[in-house]
């Protein structure tokens, strides 16, 4: 049976310490996940349409003018 999982976007301060990002990779919060990656890319496009610049995209996280945005499963 097909299971549906909800994805949410979380916001983090742009001035976030880069060490914390490494920690998030270690704790598998930043992950290689095709769906999450697709969600965050679409979200980045949405922001771009509003004139908000994305500085970089890495797996399921983007750094934007408005801070880091992270896609994650709600469960």
């Amino acid at each position: 049976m097909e299971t549906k999982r909800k994805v949410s976007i979380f916001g983090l301060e742009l001035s976030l310490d880069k060490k914390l990002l490494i920690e998030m990779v270690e704790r598998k919060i930043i992950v290689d996940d095709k769906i999450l990656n697709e969600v965050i890319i679409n979200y980045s496009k949405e922001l771009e349409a509003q004139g908000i610049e994305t500085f970089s995209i890495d797996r399921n996280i983007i750094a934007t003018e408005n801070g880091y945005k992270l896609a994650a499963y709600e469960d």
Partner: protein
Amino acid sequence: MKSDEKVINIKKGTSYLSEVIKELPSGCILNKGITGCGGTTVEIDSKRNSIILVPTKNLVLNKVKQKNIFGVTGDVKEKEILEYLEKTKIKKIIATYDALSKLIYIIGPKIYLDYFLLIDEYHILFNSYSFRRRPIRYILNNYAKFDKFCFMTATPLKGKKLLEELYHLPIISYDWEGANKVDITIKDCAFIQKELVQEIYKAKDYNLHIFVNSVNFIKRVVKQLDNGIDYRVICSEKAAETMTSINVQSINSEVRNINFYTSTAFEGCDIYDEKGMSIIVSDSDISTTILDITTLVIQICGRLRNSIYKDKLLMLLNTRKHRYCGNSKEEFLEKVAENKLLGSNTEKMFNEEDDWFRIKELRAYTESKFGSFYIIKENEKLIFDNNLMNIDLENYDIINSIYETNISVLNEVVRTDKFNVEESSIKKLDDISIEILKATDIMKEYTYDELVMLITPILENRNIKINITTVGKAVSSIMSKKRKTTNGKKQMTYKLNLR
């Protein structure tokens, strides 16, 4: 004066701020007092890491050319910034207002402790708030995270103009003994473009630097000029895209006989031309050319650094009706109050909705649907923005008080205490107005048809087509009108004289 404003006198004979201080003060608004005194240079030469935010890309390029400082604009890559940071001991970065978020992202949290943040020409935060709101709000929301910061200008924001995020900051003002006063000649013109073209053809022994914040106005004037006229236009990259067959140059290009500048060069840029004369054009028909005398005029006066004419300024303006006119102050305030009520109610109602509904609805909303001029969309919420309301109120005052008549321009200029305006200069009218006045019986009340008959030969002599617009323009600076009932019939009558 604000109760927490500290005034520091600078003795006669002092030319630069660096002769008085070696570092800018922190945690305050700094009023330099005059332009061209090297306030930004003090920070560039200080022995600490600095991030200097300026309003335009041209200003970044202008300073980078003069000083050993790293410029960050939209097209500078992250890698280039990282390389600069790595190889430089005392880091000096000059960037546009829009680049602060990028710098915070690249440098990380240590930016707040390791760098002094200077927001240069900070009055622009107010003047450009309505159309550059996102980067400006980013600065306003983040500057306090810096351990050391300073908002600097020569034309501080006061009263309603002080953005609410800056209300609490103390002001330090420098008062320069014996600062040069600028002689301003004001010409109120019915045909502002024609007047400017005449001034251009007069400029044989000197160069003209024309400040006007409308690319379309510049285009129209340039098209009227002979091919042999040596000119350049300095404007933003975006505006340049619309300037086909116009000689658009960078701010650092060689000075020409005729130089046009849009607002990209109004503030902070240094122009070196020993024979340069400044003209400000303010056409109240075009909302973007409306200048707040107390800020932009002072700024523009300081652009020509080494000219023998740097203490002189010609202002061409018209005092005709603007869209803010036609409403009394009471009527306008009623509209503001209505918008405020609507705005704060919308904010409250909308933000009480659950996240899913609110975000879904918000994405479908455009600003025109908010129902209030003062509502903005920020972080998936609607926010009632007091600053927008204050800007609206301020614009009304600028149009109605400053531009209503020549006299109030004079008063406003005198109020700033940096200008000498001769009484006679306010009587200066363009040639057409003078000719009309000569043909006029100043006691007579004219009907519209009589007015047209009076003006027609004068306009025809100048090859100006007669229509309702040209007639209106010709008399706008010398006319007063009233509605009168004659033989039971209501009609408008016109009197022509020096108001």
